[in-house]
C-alpha cells in the first residue's frame, strides 16, 4: 500500500465524525473536523511508527496536516530526507 493509501485508511478510522467514510486528497482535515487535537496526537504517533520517521515539533503545523495530500507529501519528503 502506498503512503497516501495507508494514511487514508488510518484517517478514515480516526475521523471524529463517523459519517465521514471517505476522505478525498484535498479535504480540509482540520476545518472539516476529520482530526481534532487528540486525533492529531494519535496521527503523529501513527506516522512515526508506520513510516519510521521522527517528527520535529516545528513540523507539526497546519501546512503539513491540512489535507491528505499535504500529509502524504510531507511524509514522502521526510522519508526521502531520512
Amino acid at each position, binding site marked *: 500500500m502506498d503512503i497516501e493509501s495507508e494514511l487514508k485508511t488510518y484517517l478514515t*478510522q480516526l475521523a471524529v465524525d463517523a459519517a465521514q467514510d471517505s476522505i478525498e486528497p484535498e479535504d480540509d482535515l*482540520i*476545518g472539516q*473536523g476529520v482530526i*481534532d*487535537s*487528540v*486525533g*492529531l*496526537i*494519535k496521527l503523529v*504517533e501513527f506516522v512515526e511508527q508506520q513510516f519510521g520517521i521522527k517528527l520535529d*515539533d*516545528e513540523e*507539526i*503545523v*497546519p501546512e503539513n*496536516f491540512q489535507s491528505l495530500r499535504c500529509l502524504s507529501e510531507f511524509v514522502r519528503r521526510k522519508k526521502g530526507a531520512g
Partner: protein
Amino acid sequence: MEFGFSEEQLELRGTIRSFARDELNKDLVEREQKSIFPRENWQKCADLGIQGLPFPVELGGGGADIVTTTLAMEALGYGCKDGGLLFGIAAQLWSVQMPIWEFGSEAQQTRYLPRLCSGELIGAHAMTEPDSGSDAFSLRTTAEKKADRYVLNGVKTFVTNGSAADVFLAFASIDRSKKFMGLSAFLVERGTPGFRVEGEIGKMGLQTCPMVELVFEDCEVPAENRLGVDGRGAAIFQSSMEWERSFILAACVGAMERQLNGCVEYAKQRRQYGKPIIKFQSVANKIVDMKVRMEAARLLLYKTAWLKSNDEPATAESAIAKLYLSESWVQSCLDAVQLYGGYGYTTEFEIERDLRDSIATRLYSGTSEIQRNIIARCLEG
C-alpha cells in the same frame, strides 16, 4: 519490574515530609479562612528546591528524574496540609515551567526557568475562558501579528496563582479558520501594557491559592515571547495537560496516606459502646477501602511517572491516573468525615478542608468526564 525506591530517594522523601510538616502548616486554619496566599511558604519550598526538581541544574533546577520528582511531590502532600499551596506549586511546575523547558527557546528558558525555580517569579497558565472550559480549543482570545509583536485581545478565567503571578503562559488564536492548529502560546509578563489581572474568584476550597480573571486589551507582546512556532499552541497545551494530568495529584496520594494514618489512629483511640470504633466492621471496612484506594492510586501514579521518565506515550495512562486519583481522593475525604462523625465536620479537625479541596481535583486539568473521553479515544485505537 521494580517497585522500590533508592536510598537517596527515600532520604529525599523523609526530608521533604519533615520540612512540609514543620514549615508549611503554621496558622493554616486562619490563613485558609482569610484566603491568604502563603508567599513565604512558596519561597521556602523553592529554597528547598521543590519548584526546580525536574529541570536541568544549569537552568536552576535540581536535575531529578520524573519518578523522583513525583516522590517529592507525594512527600510534600504527606506533610503539608495546605492544599492551595500544593495545587499552586504543581500547577506552575507542570503547566508553566514544563512547557517552557520543552518548547521554549534558549533565551526563554534562560530568562524564566531559573527565576521560577528559585521562587523569584511565580507562573500561571491561562487557557480557560468564560465560554470555553472542557472545549478548550474553542477559545476566543486572539493574537494578531503586527511587525515584531503580537496584539492580544480576550479574557481568561480560572487562572491559578493569578494575582500572585509574575509571568503568564497565555493561549490565543492567530487564525480561527485553522481551529486548534491556529493557536499560539505566549509568555506575558505582569506589567505589560494592555494586560490586567481582575478580581479574585471566590471558591469552595483551595482557599490559599488565588484564582483570577485576566484581561487582554490590545496587549502588545514581543514576538520573542511566543512559545514555540505559530500554530503549535494546541500541542503545547496538550503536552502541558498531559504533564498536569499525570502529576498534579501526586501530592494527593501523600495526603491520602496522611489522612489514612490519622483515621486509623483516631479509630483506635475513639471508643463507643465500650470498645475502639476500629473494632466495628463498618468502620474498619471504610479504612480498608481508603487503604486500597491509596495503594491503587500510588501504582497508577508511578506507572505514569515511569512512562514519562522513559519518554514513552502516556496519553491514556495519565488520564487513568488523573481520573482514579481524583475520584479516590474525594471518596476517601468523604469516608474520613464520616469516620470522624461530627468532629469531621468541624474546622478544628481539618478533615472538612481536605474534602472541600478534593472536589476541585475532579474539575481542574480536565474534568473526570474529559478523562473518560480521552481514555475512550485511546481504546478506539
